[in-house]
């Protein structure tokens, strides 16, 4: 029996700020930033949006896409590093808002940018164990970027929700793998507003080591090579890292292009890999095989080996990622600072 994805949904705020505009305020050169980070603008949440509201919109879209009765959803995990509360789960808010309450397993996850895939793995595991009919994993973030820091250019906002089940599966999850070490590349203490990071340390000992560990481990477990996959989706904190790790692992630029969304909306943290996967599924055909490798600072990577089925053609996705993100409104730095509560009121 095939178990896997039965539906998915994405939400991204409509507001954008250009890297050029941020560069203007901090006296940086636009071209250097855009080239160095491989991104030109990022999404900014509206005054009334947070990780919970984005998660709800994404989840509602996933339910519609899957075409199921939401009361059958028996697990729901929300991963974020910008949960609205330190104590009081985002998952319960989402569960109530999609009609999945009260019979379900629910909890929030934190593992930096891989909290979303961690939640998806847990729903998948409950499904595989026969405990649930349908489960959901959501990555949602409205992460903060420290003013004047490199990450201010890339810290965006977005959410992606994936529903897993055993009926009408559109993309089978053939295997999962995870690679984890205690690595202090990027962190935020409880009462700190902005995260801190190890600068260049976040590269090789952080992102690259774990993405390679996760991807290689998945392929070894499945007995595959990069050429066995039509698409690969990597965590994408900027436009550069995923292109570099793809090359290092032996994937071609064409394999990762469909799933590379960060250059358009910035790093959506816990949603990033999942939005990349959604964008890939938007164009994938039956029989396509996809390798997904997320990365979360702290650090670790989750990997999925996914096989697209015929059913993908039967379900209509009303909000394909690249169409959805075309709706945008640019704001200036002052408005952005108000939205992100960087102004002391």
């Amino acid at each position, binding site marked *: 029996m095939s178990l896997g994805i039965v539906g998915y949904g994405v939400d991204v705020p409509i507001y954008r700020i250009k890297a050029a505009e941020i560069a203007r305020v901090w006296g940086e050169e636009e071209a250097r930033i855009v080239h160095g980070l491989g991104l030109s603008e990022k999404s900014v949440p509206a*005054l009334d949006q947070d990780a919970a509201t984005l998660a709800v919109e994404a989840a509602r879209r996933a339910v519609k896409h899957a075409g199921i009765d939401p009361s059958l959803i028996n697990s729901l995990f929300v991963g974020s590093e910008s949960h609205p509360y330190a104590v009081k789960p985002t998952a319960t808010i989402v569960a*109530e808002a999609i009609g999945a309450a009260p019979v379900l397993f629910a909890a929030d996850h934190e593992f930096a940018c891989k909290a979303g895939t961690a939640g998806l793995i847990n729903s998948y595991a409950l499904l595989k164990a026969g405990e649930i009919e349908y489960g959901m994993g959501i990555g949602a973030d409205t992460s903060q970027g420290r003013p004047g820091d490199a990450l201010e250019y890339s810290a965006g906002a977005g959410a992606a929700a994936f529903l897993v089940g055993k009926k009408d599966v559109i993309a089978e999850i053939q295997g999962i793998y995870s690679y984890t070490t205690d690595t202090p590349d990027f962190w935020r203490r409880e009462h700190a507003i902005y995260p801190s990071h190890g600068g260049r340390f976040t590269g090789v000992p952080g992102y690259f080591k774990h993405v390679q560990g996760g991807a290689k481990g998945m392929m070894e477990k499945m007995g595959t090579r990069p050429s066995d996959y039509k698409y690969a989706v990597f965590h994408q904190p900027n436009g550069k890292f995923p292109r570099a790790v793809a090359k290092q692992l032996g994937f071609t630029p064409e394999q990762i292009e469909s799933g590379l969304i960060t250059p358009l909306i910035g790093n959506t943290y816990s949603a990033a890999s999942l939005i990349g996967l959604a964008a890939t599924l938007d164009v994938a055909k039956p029989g396509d095989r996809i390798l997904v490798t997320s990365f979360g600072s702290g650090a670790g990577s989750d990997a999925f080996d996914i096989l697209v089925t015929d059913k993908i053609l039967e379900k209509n996705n009303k909000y394909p990622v690249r169409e959805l993100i075309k709706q945008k409104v640019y704001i200036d730095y002052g408005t952005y600072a108000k939205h992100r509560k960087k102004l002391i009121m």
Partner: protein
Amino acid sequence: MKPGLPLLWRKTRERYNLIGTKCETCGTYYIPERKICAKCRRKGKVAPYTFSGRGKIYSYTVIRVAPEDYEFFVPYVLAIIQLEEGAYITGQVVDVNPESVQIGQEVEMVFRKIHDDHPEGLITYGYKFRPILK
């Protein structure tokens, strides 16, 4: 005076999902819910009903002087929406330029923060509306 915790909690499901009631006897839709049909009174058979969330802007204003706790959102659009089922409801219209809102504009329900007054307080979520995404 902030609405009390139990008061807000009691209507969480309705506020998140735009749930009202429908009188099955005369076909009238109510949001907020009415347990007694205004037309049929006790004779009406009233059941819960989840609204589609789609509607049109019937009237709107731009709030520029806000009540306590809403100052941060100024200017915001407050409207009365005519839902496609025929009932009317008050709510904000978001993701829109206040100067370009039109009567009759088609909107759909979105899930947003409605009230968040204090860094240590509770956040109230619920329905707002936005021009339909093409």
